[in-house]
């Protein structure tokens, strides 16, 4: 149980959550709550794995995963933006739909064999930094490095650019944005698509890099829902999303590793001698998600922060309200 190995693997596992969480942040910042993340991730994982098996090219797999998940997200966009239906129910439906479609199209994939995975490499010089180097820059998947780049890019886009300002306006005060000539409907479709593509990327990261393979619903095992929880903890901020994602990634890895050694801190390892205590360890990521939500909600009240004001509400032109 080497802490460096746990953290190193945690960063890799956390990258999945990072992509999904940042994707959901974009969608929610535009005012659309999309509870379909889990379904879109499964679509992404399934299609990335399937395409890579038949073509041998993992990058093609990633591309198809992002496009397919993005297209599926547009069903949610159409139902909630154009048809103005409830975003909660529609998002749930999207998860059912994505899960079902990926199970049907992924039939037989679990026995399909191995695929050529996305490359792993170390960053020259940086990987020699003590402690930090081996955790973040040594022999990581290229997806992990893409994740590093995405955090500042997403933060900068949302907070420091003109289109980012429009994005926030559409989520906070759509009628004002509309009056300024921003096309609220088109923007919302666009960012739901972005969210879908990133969820697809998260799925592809699982099946082609972090835990290669297709294991039906267990491929994601609720990570899409954890990502939605992390968005609230992150207060819709990509940097905080990264902190939460990597912490959850490390936790998942810790749960696997803690059951290995004979002794723990000089004592007999209870999880080694009572293997079924491991089920309590398996609960931890889900229990922590609830705790993280409590912390996030309390903080939101204290700091008077909160969700984008128009989150969850359809925009109807000419109607009073936001």
């Amino acid at each position, binding site marked *: 149980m080497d802490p460096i190995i746990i953290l190193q693997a945690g960063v890799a596992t956390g990258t999945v959550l990072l992509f999904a969480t940042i994707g959901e942040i974009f969608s929610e910042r535009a005012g659309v709550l999309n509870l379909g993340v889990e379904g879109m991730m499964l679509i992404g994982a399934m299609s990335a794995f399937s395409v890579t098996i038949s073509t041998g090219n993992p990058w093609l797999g990633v591309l198809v995963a992002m496009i397919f998940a993005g297209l599926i997200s547009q069903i949610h966009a159409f139902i909630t933006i154009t048809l103005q239906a409830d975003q909660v*129910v529609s998002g749930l439906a999207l998860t*059912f739909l994505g899960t*079902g479609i990926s*199970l*049907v*199209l992924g039939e037989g994939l679990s026995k399909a064999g191995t695929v050529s995975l996305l490359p792993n490499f170390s960053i020259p010089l940086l990987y020699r930094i003590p402690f930090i180097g081996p955790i973040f820059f040594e022999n990581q998947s290229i997806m992990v490095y893409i994740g590093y780049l995405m955090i500042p890019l997403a933060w900068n886009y949302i907070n420091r650019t003109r289109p980012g300002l429009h994005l926030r306006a559409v989520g906070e005060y759509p009628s004002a944005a509309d009056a300024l000539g921003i096309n609220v409907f088109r923007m919302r479709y666009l960012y739901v698509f972005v969210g879908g593509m990133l969820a697809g990327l998260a799925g592809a990261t699982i099946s082609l890099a972090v835990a290669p393979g297709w294991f039906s619903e267990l491929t994601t*095992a609720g990570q899409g829902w954890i990502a939605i929880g992390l968005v609230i903890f992150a207060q819709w901020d990509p940097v905080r999303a990264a902190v939460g994602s990597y912490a959850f990634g490390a936790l998942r890895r810790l749960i696997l590793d803690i059951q290995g050694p004979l002794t723990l801190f000089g004592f007999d390892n209870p999880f080694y001698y009572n293997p079924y205590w491991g*089920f309590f360890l398996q609960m931890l990521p889900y229990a922590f998600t*609830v705790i993280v*939500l409590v912390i996030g909600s309390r903080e939101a009240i204290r700091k008077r922060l909160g969700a984008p004001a128009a989150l969850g509400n359809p925009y109807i032109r000419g109607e009073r309200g936001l």
Partner: protein
Amino acid sequence: MIEKTSPQSGPRTGSFRIKLEPRLQEPPRWYPVAVSVGAIILALILGGIVIALSGGDPFRSYAHIARASFGNIGVISDTLVKATPILMTALACSIAFRMKLWNIGAEGQFIMGAFGASAVVLAPLLPAETPAWIFIPVMMLAGILMGALWGFIPGFLKARFNVNEIISTLMLNYISISWVNYWIFGVWSEGGFQMSPRFPKTSWLPRLLDYAESFPILRGLTTHAGLLIGILAAFVVWLLIYRSRWGYEIRLIGDNPQAARYAGIDISRNTILVMMVSGALAGLGGMSEISGVVHRLQTSPIAAGYGFTGIIVAWLAKLHPGVIIVVSVLFGALLLAGREIQPSGVPKMIQGIILVCLIASDFLLRYRIRIIRAGTEE
């Protein structure tokens, strides 16, 4: 308002526009039913297309579903067995959804109800030779209590800390599976298998085949008393929602929380209460499945997604308890027949497509579509 202009559709008719207008009057009573049926038919067509794309034969799949679920009295009985847990979870969802509390945790509450009922036998709280008339009520009570507890947690977190109940109930689903696994792998495992020993017969809900000696026609029919409990529960839920003061409060909170607050209704208290009642119903469903069908504690037949199917059924029935009974039977048929269909994800996918089509079709209840020829403008 949304306006869409279609392109030129021929020189004769000229261009026309599709115009959407909000409905100002209530549509006739048959209209919502027709829209729902239309949505389901559309969903089956779309599902068939996906089946065909993945190399299957949609007509054979659907014919198989119909035959394998309503073909003879034996499979009709099996359909009712499958419908029973769905009925309970759908009732559980309907009461929470009525208050716009998105309890997605009927699955976990169902599992915990099954656990509670099993604990009565396995702990054991009651000795194996206890007569059935004590055994079964105590198991029902234990199932209800565990389900209510599993509903209380997200209800309390929502009322006290404003924690999103969708995520907390979902997380509790995963936790409940690990919890049951701990008991059947470790404590109650039968000879190292991942299941508990079989329960004594006195803890089984009566089944139709128990009466086959006096009525030979009932031989082999596994429909159990859980169905009656479910129908009774549906009636109680109907009374509660439509005929009680509390039900009125719940509906008011769901329709207009602001008005409810001004009327002095305690929303926090009702949040917790509704989540507990919802959890109790799902927990009762878990008890009925354990005591009526599985007869031992085991994860796979209990965590089979009944809680999630219940969400769709509740929505499809527009949260009305009576309609829920009918829709549960249809979905019981889908699940029963779906077990043998390849690929195995088909029933889940069809459920997803049905839900998507239903939500989309709600639009037709709020808007009317008018097609206007160019030139006859307004």
